[in-house]
């Protein structure tokens, strides 16, 4: 049950042009830094990336945007990213904006073998256009479909050789969901330990959802909005 690969390059070896990728993280928090760097090195192109955000200029998914490797982004909030904006306005980049809870729940649906889910998010808005609406108990819901993605890439705090994962604080965010939703899921971790070292009661993502795992390196963990208070 050893799922360990040497590094990010080996983990993404069979990712090909035109594939659909799910990437964990919220803003720059909990993003699979090593996998993104390897995608840049491999220079795979025409990617469809499903990720809550699209990184910033020069970091996160911004690195893939810079090299024009992404054809389409499916996100809930694309933030402040000059290159993103330029590509979107020029029509080089397709962008599908979907509600954050819909994004999360569509991943959950994939991981839980549910072909579709109902959510009220977007009813009465342009998000509902072309979608099936159904009323339950007097309230309208949209039918939203599970994702069908070739690969998922997630970042965890700790992981074991069986692929069991533990996330830290709010870097959990979309990671456990996308981990469940990939046909092949790659986990990069800050601390890779032998099977048996993690408490089975504390595991957030059971290894059955993970196909490849590796010890990440040189994490930058950039902060997008540094907000602090002075001691007095």
């Amino acid at each position: 049950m050893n799922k360990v690969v040497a590094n990010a390059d080996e983990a993404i070896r069979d990712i090909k042009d035109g594939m659909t990728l799910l990437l964990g993280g919220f803003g720059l928090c909990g993003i699979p830094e090593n996998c993104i760097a390897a995608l840049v090195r491999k220079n795979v192109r025409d990617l469809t990336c499903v990720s809550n955000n699209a990184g910033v200029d020069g970091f996160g998914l911004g690195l893939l945007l810079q090299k024009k490797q992404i054809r389409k982004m499916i996100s809930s909030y694309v933030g402040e990213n000059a290159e993103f904006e330029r590509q979107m306005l020029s029509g080089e980049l397709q962008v599908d904006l979907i509600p954050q809870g819909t994004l999360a729940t569509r991943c959950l649906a994939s991981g839980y073998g549910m072909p579709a889910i109902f959510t009220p998010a977007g009813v009465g808005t342009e998000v509902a256009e072309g979608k099936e609406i159904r009323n339950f108990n007097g309230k309208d819901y949209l039918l939203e479909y599970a994702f069908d993605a070739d690969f998922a890439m997630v970042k965890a705090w700790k992981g074991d050789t069986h692929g069991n994962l533990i996330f830290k604080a709010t870097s959990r965010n979309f990671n456990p969901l996308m981990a469940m939703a990939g046909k092949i899921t790659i986990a990069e971790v800050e601390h890779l330990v032998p099977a048996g070292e993690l408490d089975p009661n504390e595991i957030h993502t059971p290894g059955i959802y993970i196909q490849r795992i590796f010890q990440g390196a040189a994490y930058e963990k950039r902060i997008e909005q540094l907000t602090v208070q002075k001691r007095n």
Partner: protein
Amino acid sequence: MLDKNGIAKRIAKELKDGYYVNLGIGIPTLVANYIPKGMNVVLQSENGLLGMGPFPFEGEEDPDLINAGKQTITTVPGSAFFDSAMSFGMIRSGKVNLTILGAMEVDENGDIANWKIPGKMVKGMGGAMDLVASAKNIIVAMQHVNKAGESKLLPKCTLPLTGIRCVKKIVTELAVLDVMESGGFRLLERAPGVSVDHIVKSTAGRLLVEGEIPEMQID
């Protein structure tokens, strides 16, 4: 007329002991500073945290601990982390008692627009559509008029909608209003020094003014 902190202070009076509250970006965030002493209110951050605390002290920031505005934060005792599906699960199932968020426009039906201006760069709706579609109790914190001096309380929203028939109450620099079941705004309170006439002139949507309108008590 209130400043941003005044609006936040007034909204803080809507909090109740034991509430779980989601605060949007902007003025709503300031509400956290005015939670009455001794009142138990737990702040939810939709990126996966219940029990959000203040900003960390310099040098103690943790890149793995941020709020939905991507700001570094801390936790309070009794907090819990979870994934985004559970986070929106608790929002959709109505466990979050109160959502406070900003808006570009609100209308007589309680519809809200706060995510997109056609022709301008669109950043996305983030979690706003989930929040407004699910919350039982939504307070909008915003300026009564926009920078061009036009009312943001309209007969009908002109911008792309974020959600429909969802806004219950609005707190602006001029007034506290609610949205009536039958449609239309009702004036509940006026800001210190602000006349009813000023509020009427600043409100484009149908406005019910009934009886004496009390001045807000915010301190």
